[in-house]
């Protein structure tokens, strides 16, 4: 492990959730186990527990993402926290205030937790280094770097359907180059002991040294899907695409779209996941997205429980 992991306190307890990279297996399992308890809470008539009563959670979205912000907001509210949503892309930053000034001002309002989404990799780390010891930071997606709660909800979903990580083959398919989700998924899967993690995609959308993360690289979709237990599709990141990496989205679908015929190469009980929002007809066929092997909507439900677990564990660590 690195000499100092900024996410962990002196006793190894979770202080911030910035990246799955470097977190011990026991911490991931603690989050998954705790999330399981929260799933039952979200199925009750009164979907609220009092753990974060009186705490203020600030959603700092320097990059807009309605879905992620909403799931964090629901998670915090189900823990009885007060939630303040700040869409900073359109507020004081445009008046020239720096990132750290913004955070200092919100800290002065007695924030207890910041949920940070930022287009620049490392922005949540920077914030975590500058906040007081009583404030916790959760990375809700930074640049191309990480999206740890998405990675956690993905492994939660796999555990729910497949139970044991240690005999699985998992394929992550699509735009690996621009995907912070994929990086978080790979770290989570390898830490939890998944023996074979495959990445499948065109050369132009594959980071050059991705093998170093302990994955097998496939450029042929059919080869990559053969015999897998889990297919994790990635969104084709149109808005992050710079230059001509792809001829067209129709061309992409012909080579890497998940169709019923390609899914048939995976194990018969393979599950299909997607972090959303989906580009139907680009990376995934509607027949698969809405089909019996799709667990895309349960992922959303589990995502709330996982975010509740992360927030509760952080708040419980003082």
């Amino acid at each position, binding site marked *: 492990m690195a000499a100092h992991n900024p996410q962990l306190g002196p006793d190894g307890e979770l202080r911030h959730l910035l990246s799955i990279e470097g977190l011990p297996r026991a911490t991931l399992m603690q989050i998954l*186990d*705790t999330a399981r*308890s929260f799933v039952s809470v979200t199925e009750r008539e*009164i979907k609220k527990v009092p753990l974060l009563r009186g705490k203020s959670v600030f959603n700092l979205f320097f990059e807009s993402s309605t879905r992620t912000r909403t799931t964090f907001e629901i998670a915090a509210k189900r823990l009885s926290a007060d939630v303040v949503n700040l869409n900073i892309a359109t507020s004081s930053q445009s008046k020239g205030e720096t990132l750290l000034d913004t955070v200092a001002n919100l800290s002065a309002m007695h924030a207890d937790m910041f949920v940070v989404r930022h287009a620049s990799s490392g922005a949540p780390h920077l914030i975590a280094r500058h906040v007081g010891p009583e404030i916790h930071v959760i990375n809700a997606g930074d640049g191309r770097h990480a999206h740890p709660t998405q990675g956690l909800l993905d492994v939660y979903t796999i555990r729910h359907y497949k139970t044991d990580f240690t005999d699985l083959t998992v394929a992550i398919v699509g735009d690996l180059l621009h995907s912070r989700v994929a990086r978080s998924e790979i770290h989570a899967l390898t830490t939890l002991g998944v023996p074979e993690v495959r990445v499948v995609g065109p050369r132009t959308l594959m980071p050059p040294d991705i093998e170093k993360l302990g994955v097998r690289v496939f450029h042929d979709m059919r080869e990559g899907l053969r015999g897998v237990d889990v297919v994790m599709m990635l969104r084709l990141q149109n808005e992050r695409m710079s230059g001509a990496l792809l001829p067209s989205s129709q061309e992409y679908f012909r080579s890497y779209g998940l169709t019923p015929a390609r899914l048939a190469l995976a194990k018969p009980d393979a599950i299909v996941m997607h972090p959303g929002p989906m580009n139907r007809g680009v990376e995934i066929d509607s027949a698969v997205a809405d089909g019996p092997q799709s667990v895309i909507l349960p992922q959303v439900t589990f995502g709330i429980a996982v975010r509740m677990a992360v927030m*509760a564990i952080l708040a419980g660590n003082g």
Partner: protein
Amino acid sequence: MPTPPTLPDAELSLDHLVSRMRGAIGADTALVGIHTGGVWVAERLHAALGLPTPLGTLDVAFYRDDFRQRGLKPDVRPSDLPFEIPGRDIVLVDDVLYTGRTVRAAVNLLFDYGRPGRVRLAALLDRGGRQLPIAAEWVGDVVDVPADRGMIVLERDASGRLSLTMEEAGGGA
């Protein structure tokens, strides 16, 4: 002072509790055990009293008032209440009744599932030391153990036999 307090035989305390509750519990009454020791007691009561309503279980971790001091334990078990709560006659079951804080948390949790008709409390052992205005309807036995002597813990061996032991205060692990 140095002599360890004498704790009752948990199996005898259970017999006392069963005989006190018998006749006072209706067919619609639901027993709800509080994890973990309370569930063991509730399972035994449920069998001994031959109750038709399925047993419920609660884990009060999300409702504890010492969350800020102690954090969240990792394996919070899902609460399971396999019956309708509104209007229900409920008996909460715990192993050792002490400060009353666990029972407070359990009552709050219960009300997040609906509005019960009545909630009563059964405890295997009452050790005194209440910090809240909470009393049990039935207890198996009563012992007076000062707070500085540590925690009384219910254990269950492989054969299902229950026993009470003292975890000395400041005694390390």
